[in-house]
């Protein structure tokens, strides 16, 4: 039988490419964000905030393309699952962009001459590196429809969660100095935002499994740790 709907297939491929390259935008934003955290670079932080418009713009663009495809092409089966997954992925991308902005916004709060505690900053930088690595892995898993690679994101996310807990312990024991305690609390906001980015990367991994299997299953259910939850086909 002849191949048909070639234009539609091109549109779908372009849509996926456009959505997934949104992850590259987030990785770039995250790397700048971490550099701004490391060097308390307010200008770079402002750039992160300004450039979030690009991520939001990508979200709107892909969202519109998805609505158009749904309205004009009536996709079904794997195509429909792909489009549904891309909507979720774009939502995660937009949220992760916002988390970078959240981090960038607290950098000025640490003050010009912040009482920096190396053991906490090191862990936060490691969280940032790990989160960026997870985003690249999530993108590759999606492109290659590799469920095992997607599932491995849970293991990667555990490393971020562990570092987040360690940051918390450092913050709890940071001492009596008012400025240092304020700094540590601010850094916990940064750690929390990075921890959420890790969770968003896992969410993208779950969408990979949905596209491939047709079943949506959370890899880790927060309300029932240690077991995935089936949430419908």
């Amino acid at each position, binding site marked *: *039988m*002849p191949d*048909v709907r070639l234009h539609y297939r091109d549109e779908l491929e372009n849509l996926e490419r456009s959505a997934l390259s949104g992850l590259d935008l987030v990785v770039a934003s995250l790397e700048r964000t971490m550099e701004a955290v490391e060097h308390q670079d307010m200008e770079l932080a402002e750039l992160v905030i300004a450039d979030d418009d690009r991520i939001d713009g990508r979200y709107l663009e892909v969202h519109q393309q998805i609505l158009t495809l749904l309205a004009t092409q009536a996709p079904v*089966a794997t195509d429909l*699952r792909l489009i549904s997954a891309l909507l979720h992925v774009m939502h995660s991308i937009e949220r992760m962009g916002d988390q970078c902005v959240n981090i960038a916004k607290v950098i000025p709060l640490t003050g010009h001459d912040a009482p920096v505690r190396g053991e906490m900053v090191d862990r936060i930088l490691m969280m940032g590196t790990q989160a960026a690595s997870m985003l690249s892995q999530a993108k590759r898993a999606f492109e290659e429809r590799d469920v095992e690679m997607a599932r491995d994101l849970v293991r990667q996310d555990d490393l971020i969660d562990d570092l987040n807990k360690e940051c918390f312990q450092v913050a709890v024991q940071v001492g009596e100095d008012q400025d240092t305690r304020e700094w540590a609390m601010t850094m916990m906001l940064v750690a929390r935002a990075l921890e959420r980015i890790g969770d968003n990367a896992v969410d993208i991994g779950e969408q990979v499994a949905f596209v491939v299997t*047709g079943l949506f299953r959370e890899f880790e259910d927060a309300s029932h740790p240690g077991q995935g939850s089936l949430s419908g086909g």
Partner: protein
Amino acid sequence: MPKTADKATVDLGAGASSATTRPTNTRGGSGAARKERRAKRLELRHVDLFYSDFQAVQDVTMSIEPNRVTALIGSSGCGKTTLLRSLNRMHELTPGARVGGEVLLDDHDIYARNVDPVEIRRLVGMVFQAPNPFPTMSVYENVAAGLVLNRRGIGRAEKDDVVERSLRGAHLWDEVKDRLDRKASDLSGGQQQRLCIARAIAVEPEILLMDEPCSALDPIATLAIEDLIEDLKGRYTIVIVTHNMQQAARASDVTAFFNLEATGRPGRLIEMGPTQELFTRPGQKETEDYVSGRFG
């Protein structure tokens, strides 16, 4: 085979379904028509269909459940219309046509030796692709036609009752009640198709077969027929052949996909399942390719 004398003896498990014993609870219109009754079930076992030496359909085994809309989809030439016509013994009207396997209507083989095909066609009604009312007959006469042919001596009052009930059941009564004596050909295409559905349900069939019932209709008339199908499934078992996959997705509960390996080869049932599943998570690659429009 005698066509009328044997009818009373050919029960087919439909003894309680004659027009005189059927509850007349559809008079209230479509709302009442939605009231469910248990329609009959069709079961196909290893059905092979032939036109002389050419095998059109091969080894189809499937269950068509009561009070459900089952859509048959597949590319042209895959045998879905041939299969549909075998379900009320219309296939055999083509010279050289043969049927193998079994077609059971609530466990009774419709091809058994003592079964009257005319009775089968009353129990299993058919609505065709193009609306085909009798053009010179009035709206009223079109609906009453099957009734008159099937039952002698039916009184005018009862006939009026059945005509109104059938037209209401086909969502047509309000549009034609003041012109029942007008020619059917004066109606629009969508109205004519609903008239054909009214004619089909007037004889109180158990099963309704629809062969691309909307392919000659505009989108609004199509949606009206789809609404009607949704209503009718409360009372009938419905099998619909459609080339419109969105229609299959919208209007059916179960979808069966047919395909053929190559031109000249027989059509086969590839996959059958809940429509929602078939259009979101098909089990077979062939189905996926077809419903996604990857291959024509």
